């Protein structure tokens, strides 16, 4: 850093919202696992940092079948305390120390890394039909997580994520033996009040829904045929972890496995 940035440490959600303002020039630090390496590597340049750790935005609450998760809730806190596919997805991120520091809000705001996709909780949250409550210019806003991911986190401060409790959920992922290798591909599915939803991680810059798979299943296609449709929904790319060719070969099998896990009979 060529200069010392202003560091804001709000003590409440309201203070965080007003400190964030319209977000211009503000770098939000949830757990720090994404921003701190950027600072250490001298790749970060920002004038204002907003630290959320003291803003009281952590916590999981349940009311009337709705699960609400504060933006600063750590990934470790999600394990066992939230339904699948979210719980298992959180369990597979990093290691105990990283999960104890990284937050769900940060994961949702994680764009693609320099060499690999990241944001492993995005596909599970899409599958759960989660919505995101954010603040920024024009005040608070609640939008489906897919819309939030599409427009990106710029100018928005994530406050909370919420979704209806699913009847069932499943998460299948393909990684490498070592905990710190990013997820190559993942498939999240959930039986939500509005039907079965399927989402893919690792096949694009953010998590993505797989509507063709969902439609095929609704139309009575076999698990294998429905799973094969996933390539209509996402276009896997080459990166440091795997080639696009490999992802195209592996993804339908992974989708079929996730569907079997959630109880769809293979035909």
């Amino acid at each position, binding site marked *: 850093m060529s200069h010392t940035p202003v*560091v804001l440490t709000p003590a409440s959600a309201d203070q965080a919202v007003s400190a964030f303002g319209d977000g211009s020039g503000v770098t939000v630090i949830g757990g*720090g*696992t994404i921003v*701190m390496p950027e600072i*250490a590597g001298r790749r970060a340049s920002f004038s204002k*940092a907003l630290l959320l750790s003291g803003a009281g935005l952590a916590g999981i609450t349940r009311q009337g079948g709705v699960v609400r998760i504060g933006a600063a809730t750590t990934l470790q806190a999600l394990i066992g305390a939230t339904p699948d596919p979210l719980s298992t997805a959180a369990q597979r991120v990093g*290691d*105990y*120390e*990283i999960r104890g520091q990284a937050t769900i809000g940060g994961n949702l705001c994680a764009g693609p890394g320099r060499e690999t996709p990241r944001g492993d909780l995005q596909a599970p949250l899409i599958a759960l039909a989660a919505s995101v409550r954010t603040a920024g210019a024009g005040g608070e806003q609640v939008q489906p997580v897919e819309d939030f991911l599409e427009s990106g986190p710029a100018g928005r401060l994530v406050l909370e994520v919420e979704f209806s409790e699913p009847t069932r959920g499943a998460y299948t992922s393909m990684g490498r033996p070592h905990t710190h290798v990013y997820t190559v591909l993942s498939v999240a599915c959930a039986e939500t009040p509005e039907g079965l939803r399927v989402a893919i991680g690792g096949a694009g810059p953010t998590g993505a829904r797989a509507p063709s798979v969902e439609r095929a299943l609704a139309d009575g296609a076999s698990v294998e045929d429905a799973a094969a449709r996933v390539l209509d929904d996402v276009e896997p790319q080459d990166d440091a972890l795997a080639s696009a060719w490999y992802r195209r070969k592996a993804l339908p099998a992974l989708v079929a496995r996730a569907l079997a896990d959630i109880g769809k009979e293979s035909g």
Partner: protein
Amino acid sequence: MKITVNGAEHELASPPLTSLLNALRDELNVTGPKVGCQGGNCGTCTVLVDGEPRRSCLLPLAMVDGAEVTTIEGLGTPKRMHPMQAAFHFYYGSQCGFCAPGMITASVALLERNPNPTRKQIQNALGGHICRCTGYVKIIDAVEAVARGESFDGAELTRSRGGEATPKGASA
């Protein structure tokens, strides 16, 4: 900002986004936690923050204001080692020693939350810690030994357990 490190309170002058690791090493001269990858991937900077293992390279000082930090130095001394330190010594869990500050603090924290971990659980808990000597088997052996209550009374850095000079596996 103020932090307590190994029982001693310190007022810090480093800027608020300085990593806890750099503040410990450069401002407080606590050099047990090592500078490895500085990206959270290698584990050697791991310290206990209010009892929980954390990567000190990933924690901005402003996030640990008022916290109690324990580094490898705070666990024991060469003459009075923490059982985990003694076990790492006795089982040859520390070769070049670069990963040991993180491996040992993370292992102490593991046994705090799970006193009887399976071998698989130890592997998972240490999964984010890289040993460049590849001495993982001995490290896991050491953690298992502490978990099953092996005593390391009298162990010193220059000697093996109980004052005996015969390390495990050596012929008498």
